């Protein structure tokens, strides 16, 4: 067995517990994306074109609400900003790779791939084939995400129209947001964003959504101030 393949398999093994966690999310995404009004092709291909779970759920919800496209794109951008942190964090470990490797690994750089890979680099350092570990972790997650999306679409298509599933997306968001409300700044960010979203709801182009998000982020950041010690970045959320 070549060193490349060994590292690739080690990446898959390290990713495995995360794959188990991601699978039901893919199922739910596939089923709800159809229900929100996306075509089968759009729902499936979003999993490889955007390939970022939380923003895919949000896109499905916003399409369902007939939100203008540029607001959806802007929301995807805000939600995925955190990937720049992962990019910064892993950059030193892969700085000597050829550009095509950097581009491929960047495409596969999800929350879950980051979590498994950064731990590996921190413990083992850079070895001649450690980028194959990154590839194994990233690719296995990509593969499971495509499969679970497809299965979700298949199951979603079998759900009768009369079962109103349009409340399942907001419920998914509730399940995602509640666990991150761990301190006062986070709770204040959530409440202020929520209230602004209500007040600004009737503004044109659903610009109120972006406004609310920015107010919430600002409130959380200002409240955190300089008092709390810098905590180690732990990836949270899906993909």
């Amino acid at each position: 067995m070549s060193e490349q393949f060994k590292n690739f398999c080690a990446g898959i093994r390290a990713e495995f517990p995360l794959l188990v966690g991601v699978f039901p999310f893919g199922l739910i995404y596939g089923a709800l994306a159809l229900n929100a009004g996306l075509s089968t092709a759009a729902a499936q291909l979003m999993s490889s074109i955007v390939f970022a779970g939380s923003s895919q759920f949000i896109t499905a919800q916003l399409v369902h609400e007939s939100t203008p496209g540029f607001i959806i794109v802007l929301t995807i951008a805000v939600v995925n900003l955190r990937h720049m942190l992962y990019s910064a964090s892993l950059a030193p470990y892969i700085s000597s790779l050829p550009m095509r490797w950097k581009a491929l690994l960047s495409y596969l750089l999800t929350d879950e791939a980051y979590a498994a890979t950064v731990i590996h680099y921190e413990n083992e350092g850079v070895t001649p084939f450690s980028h194959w570990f990154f590839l194994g972790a990233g690719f296995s997650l990509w593969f499971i995400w495509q499969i679970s999306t497809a299965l979700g679409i298949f199951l979603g298509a079998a759900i009768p129209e009369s079962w109103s599933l349009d409340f399942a997306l907001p419920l998914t968001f509730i399940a995602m947001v509640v666990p991150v409300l761990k301190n006062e700044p986070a709770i204040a960010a959530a409440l202020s964003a929520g209230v602004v979203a209500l007040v600004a709801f009737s503004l044109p182009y659903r610009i109120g959504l972006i406004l609310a998000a920015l107010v919430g982020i600002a409130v959380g950041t200002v409240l955190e101030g300089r008092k709390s010690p810098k905590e180690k970045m732990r990836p949270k959320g899906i993909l």
Partner: protein
Amino acid sequence: MNIWLVMLFGGLITFGMRFSLIYLFGSFEIPETIRKALHYVPPAVLSAIIFPELFLPNGTLDLSLENTRLLAGLVAILVAWFSKNTLITILAGTLALFLLKLFL
């Protein structure tokens, strides 16, 4: 904008962010304030979507007991708090909405 264009731009931006600092390695650092601010993106964005869904079921503020979505949403928040489980939260919220519609 058409859904395919939304996906294309959304995908390009997402890839761009993942690639950005790997590409710029050594020449750019993320400012500390931005690092802090990123912690608050999930609670802010998700709440900005959830609140109107719960409080404005027909586009207008509804705080009455007739607002079954708000009540079911509160049930889901409690269940999410204690269970920390996505599937259980979705099932509990859906069941709550179903029962509330049946009995209220």
